[in-house]
Structures are given as C-alpha cells and as structure tokens.
C-alpha cells in the first residue's frame, strides 16, 4: 500500500454530518489477513459491525497470556537486546581477555610442570570473577529499568497487557541469560587456554567456579535491578551501581580489616561479618569447593572448617541465595508501587 491510497481517503469533507464521515479505502477493507483466524466476539462489540480486518486480527477471547509466558517473552526480548548491546560485547571481551592473560601467565609461571592443584591460576580466576562479574551484573541491572523509564519505553511496555512483576522478572531472566553467556564464554576461554597449555586444573573445579560465578552474577543483578527500580535516571542508577561495586569489592573489605584490627574482633565474628559481603561468600565457597580447603584463609577459615565442616556449603548457599532473592523481592515490590513514568 502506498501513501497515495491514504491520501485518497484523507481529504475529509468539511461537511456537516453529525459523526464524521469516514472514507475507508476499499483496499483496506478487503485485505485478507495472513492470520487466517476467526475473530472472537468481544464484549465491547455486540453490534457486530466490525470490518473483516477487525475480525481477522482478533485474538482468541480476551484473556491475557499467563505469567510464565509473559516473563519469557520479555526475557527473550531483553536477552536479544542485551547481546546486541555494547556493554555485553565489551564485558565479554574484557572477561575473556583478562582470563586469557591470567591463564597464559600461569602457564608460563608453572613452566608447564603440569602439576595439578589449587594455585595461582584458580586464585587468579577467582580474582577476575570478583572484579568483573559484579561490575557487569550490577551495571547491567542498573540500566534495566531506569533507562527504559527515562526513555518512556517502560511506560509503553506497561501499557500492554503485562503486569509489572512480569516485566521485572522477565528483564531479570533475560539479563541473567546474557550474563550466563558472558561468563560461560569468558571462563570457557580460560579453560581452553589452560587445557591447551597443559596446566592441570581440574575440569570439575572450573565448572564449579563457573556455576558459582553465575550465582554471584544473579545476586549482583538482583541488586543492580533494585537500584534501577529505585532510580529515576539511568545515569544515577549506573553511578549508584558502580558505587555499590566499589563498596563490595574494596571498601567493605578494607573497613572490615581495619575494624577487625582496631576492635580486636574475635575470629568467629570476623568470619560471620565477612559473610555479609556476597563477594566473600563467593570467594570462600569457591575455595571451599576447590582443592584447597578454607583453612587457606588462616585462623578464620580454620575456625569455619572446624566449626561447620560440611555445613559450610549450606551456609554459603544460604548467603548467596539471600542476595539473589531479597533484592529481587524488594525490587518487584518497588516496581509495583511506583509510577511507570
């Protein structure tokens, strides 16, 4: 259809009829629908005066899709958008690049002696994950709601038959998958290099580390999206996310160290306080599950191993789960309370 057709029906008479006369081009009326579905009668349309066009586009009944379906729809869109975004490419490249560097440095350091154990390689990977993954997940989450809100997209999206929880969770799931891809690719490259250079880090340990990294990413994404749902502007949200990242990565540790030395905290107090930080939970869980046990971490780690032993897994899992669920739940609440625009 070209614009000329529209113009043909466009010259409205300035006449005097009570309801404006509408001239619908014949081509519009007769167009057959590719849907080929019969339209359901709608409550608001008892008169049956719809055009064939209306009938054909009609959905079956007027029941909105279920929650799971909407979450998946939004998630799919978010994922597609994320993997096309610059940040995704940037983080994946940075992650894989730094991982490569660490792997090669480890390879040259061990001189290909091929000794299998927990070592600087694993430590380096843990360090890398601790730096990159929270930053990535926090900023990805921080952009999710606030930038849409700022650009009016959120309002448009919410004007559709979806609930706010669905949009929120959908975005969460979509971004989670994007982060999953990023982490898998980054650590996959590391593992590939390690395999190629013949450093025997155990494959199970790498997979486990990957899983834990994803867990950490889920928690940080949850926090990032909470920040986003509370922020009016995307720039503020991202700024806050970076601040939170700095706090979790450096400030809280340094604070805890200084506090522990100044206040002469007991070992168990130090251990439990450190567990407040999800990065520490990740780190300790990785160490705990890797070759080395937690006693690598000195007296506090020894205390943890001796006091809780196998229960540590449950403690760490609870810590990580809390960081996923609590901010997510608060975020959904905030989303449901606040105006869309």
């Amino acid at each position, binding site marked *: 259809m070209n614009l000329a057709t529209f113009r043909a029906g466009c010259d409205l008479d300035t006449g005097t009829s009570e309801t404006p006369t509408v001239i619908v081009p014949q081509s519009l009326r007769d167009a057959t629908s590719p849907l080929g579905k019969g339209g359901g009668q709608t409550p608001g349309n008892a008169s049956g005066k719809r055009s064939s066009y209306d009938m054909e586009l009609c959905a079956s009944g007027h029941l909105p899709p279920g929650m799971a379906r909407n979450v998946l729809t939004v998630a799919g869109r978010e994922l597609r958008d994320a993997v096309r975004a610059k940040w995704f490419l940037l983080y994946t490249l940075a992650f894989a690049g730094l991982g490569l560097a660490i792997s090669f440095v480890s390879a040259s350091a061990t001189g290909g*002696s091929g000794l299998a154990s*927990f*070592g600087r390689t694993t430590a380096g990977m843990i360090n890398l994950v601790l730096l990159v993954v929270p930053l990535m997940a926090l900023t990805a989450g921080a952009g999710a709601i606030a930038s849409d809100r700022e650009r009016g997209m959120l309002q448009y999206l919410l004007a559709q038959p979806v609930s706010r929880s669905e949009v929120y969770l959908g975005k969460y799931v979509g971004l989670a998958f994007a982060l999953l891809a990023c982490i898998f*690719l980054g650590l*996959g490259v590391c593992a590939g290099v390690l*395999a190629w250079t013949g450093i025997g880090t155990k494959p199970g340990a790498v997979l486990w580390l990957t899983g834990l990294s994803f867990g950490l990413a889920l928690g940080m994404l949850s926090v990032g999206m909470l920040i986003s749902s509370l922020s009016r502007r995307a720039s503020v949200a991202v700024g806050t996310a970076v601040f939170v990242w700095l706090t979790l990565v*450096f400030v809280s540790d340094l604070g805890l160290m200084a506090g522990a030395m100044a206040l002469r905290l007991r070992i168990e107090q130090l251990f439990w306080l450190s567990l407040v930080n999800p990065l520490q939970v990740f*780190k300790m869980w990785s160490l705990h599950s890797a070759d080395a046990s937690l006693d690598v971490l000195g007296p506090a780690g020894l205390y943890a191993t001796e006091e809780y032993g196998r229960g540590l897994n449950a403690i760490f899992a609870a810590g990580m789960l809390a960081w996923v669920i609590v901010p997510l739940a608060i975020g959904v609440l905030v989303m449901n309370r606040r105006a869309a625009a």
Partner: protein
Amino acid sequence: MNGVLGAILISVGGLVARAGDGLPGNDHESPRDRAGLSRAVLTGEIGKRIAGAEEGATIEIGPGVYREHLRIGKRITLVGLPGAILDGAGSGDIVEIAAEGVTIRGFTLRNTGIDLEQENAAIRVLAGRATIEDNVLEDVLFGIDLRGAPDCIIRGNRIGGKALDIARRGDGLRLWRSDRGIIEYNTLHDGRDAILWYSSGITVRGNRSENCRYGLHLMFSDEVVIEDNTLTGNSVGIYLMYSAGVEIARNRLVRNRGPSGYGIGLKETDRFRVQENLITGNRVGVYLDGSPFTAKQPGEFARNIFAFNDIGVTFLPSARGNEFSENNFIDNITQVAVSGRGTLTGNRFWKGEAGNFWSDYTGYDRDGDGIGDFVHESRTLFESLTDRNPAMRLFLFSPTQQAIEFVGRALPAVRPESKFEDEVPRMRPVEIAFAREEAAGGALGLGGAAALLLTAGAGVLVAARRDGGT
C-alpha cells in the same frame, strides 16, 4: 602459628613420655600375654606344625581362615599360600616372633585387638634378622612392631589400620631400637604413624602412605635414607625430630593437610639433605624448626618442587644455616614465610650461580643467560600484614589484597622490608624428570569443560539472535 606449634610440641612430648614408660625394650613379656599365646600355640593347627618343625624349616600353609595367635620361637620360614588368613578374632596380637632369622611371607593377617595399652599388633618382632614380606594386614591396631630387632627386612606389605578415631589408632609400622633395617615398597593406610624410635641406619624406600597421621616419623634416629616414597593425604608427610644424617630424596609429599600439615617437618635435626622431592598441595611444604641443629653442615635443599602449598617453606626464627638452590617455587600462596617476627638471615636462597625458580618473579632476562637480571625480592605489604596478623588471611584472593599490594608497591613509605633475596633467580623452572609423570590427565577433561562452556555460551547467543528474526 605458635599455638599450632605448641600443640605439636605437647603431643610429641606426650608420645616421648609414653614410649619411655610403657615400652621397656626387649623385656616386653607380660604374664597375661604369655598365657594367651601359649594356649593358642598348643591348640592351633599352624601352632602344632610350628611346634613339630625343625630349625630352618619352611612351612607352607594352605588356604583357609586360621583363628590363631602364634608365637614363633625357632628360625623357620612360614609361607602363606594364596588364601591363607590368620584371624586374631579381635583380641591380642596375632604373631610374635621371638627367634632370629624368621621369615613370614604371603599371609593375610586381620582383626587384632584394639587395646592401645597392650599395643595389640599383627606382627610383633622381638628378635633380629626377620623378614616380613608380601603380607596383607587388615583391620589391625598396630601393624608391624619391631622391638630391639636389628637387621630386619620389611618389604611389600600392605598395612591397613582400623576405622577408628585417630586418637584410638595404633601405628602401622614401628621400629624401637632396631638398627639397620630395610623398609621398602610397603603400603600403609588409615593408621596412625610409621615411626622410627632410636633406630639408625635404616633405609625407607618406595613406600606409600595414605590417610595416616604421620606418613613417616623419625625420633632420635640417625643415618636414615628416605627415598622414593609417596606420602599423600596424611596429617603430616615426613617429620624428623632430634635425628641426624638424613637423606630425603625423590619422595612425593602431596596434600598432607592436617592441623599442622607439613610436607616435611624438621625439628632440631642435623646433617640433612632434601633433594628432588615433589612437595605439593600441603599446608606447609617444608617446616624448619631449629634445623640444622649444629653448624656442622648446612641444611641442603636442592632441586625440589614446592608447588601449590599454602606456604612453601616456613622458618621458625631458630632455623639458620639452610641453603636452597635450584628449587622450583611454583604458586605457593606464600612462597616463604617466617614465623613470628624473625628474619631469614642465616639462610640462603642461592648457592654460587645456582638460584631457584620463583613463579612470582617479576624481573626479566635481557642477556638471555637464563638468570633474571634483577635480584628476586620478596616483599608484599599484604604478606607482611598477614605475617603479623594471621586472621587477615581471610582476605586472601580478593581484589582488596591486590589493592593493598599495589599500595605497598606504589608508596615506598609503607613498603615492607624484603624477607629474603635470591641473587640469581632462574627464568625457567629446573627440569626434574621424575615429577613430570605427575602431570594431570586433566587436560582432556579441561578441554571438555572448555568446550562445554563455550558451546553453551555461544548457544545462548545464537538462540537470542535467531529468536528475533521472524
């Protein structure tokens, strides 16, 4: 660290005291014991055959389960044919050798008593020149217990302890005042210690030890050769106390991670050489306390691999006069530590032109002679922090650690003193042939893991993109 050390001293001290009280050397024969054994000797089938045998005879025992306690009082060779099982029925010792030159070969011995005070053993040797060969000892409190039995050969036995709490286990192998023995190709597992008391001139070769307390423990035992042994997953690998003239070569000390968790510990030991050992995954690779004890000969550590230990080498301030050359220090979380506030003066990390390989060396080699152009120094702010305040190790492996170390490098004001120097650090690790076979078969699995991760990651991307293009 001091606490742990204290605990060890106390436990070792206790051991010494108990050994001194309870083990009167050759005179070990309590009346009760004798009575039990005598009955067994009289009634059992094997006992009757021994009683009827001549000096120097060889007795072969066919398959079957023999619930007997034996006392061998004449020079015979007792051979168990496959399936010959001596069962102690959960009480007392099983075999006692009271005559010189006895050989026991090919038996399965099982199920001793669990009386720690009586020290129930599978084989107790009270006379010299015994040969104990190719036996399998299962579910025993003490395994092979030599008391004043010189010139014995213990070879190819497999000794498995009882599944008891470590405090209720006995020693898999014990030599008490039994010089010039050869202990080779035995396997010990789930026992307490393999221990040498006042026994000199011993060769310990090719043995394996797993899941015990001390893989090998020397007390006051001189001129001992320890070679080609594999000690894995014990509380401590090799621990030498108050001994002198010890050669430790080509042993594998892997993942010995008990509360002290030394690969090799040396306390007040003199004249020792530690060469070509693979020391990996231990809590502390080598622990030096007051060794070497005199200045007669430097403690020599050459061509060892210290890899992936929490701490490569720990020195107590009392340890002086050690020389490290041509060792590979690979990715130990702390390569070298000094306990307390001591320094490493008096120990050297190079010998002539022979330095060590340090995986954390940051220099380079412009002239291509294989030796780094700069002295290897060890000084990181975080390490000096954890040396002083061990609880801060909790923050290991975090970006915070690196931030602190960065600050330490950037600001000379807070830069700690270097703990030690290696003037001729190697650029490449020393090739040590026997260690190579340890190379993990993990490469294939790791490649698989990599492929899995990459495929899954790429799969998500592909799915995300294809979904869009309706």
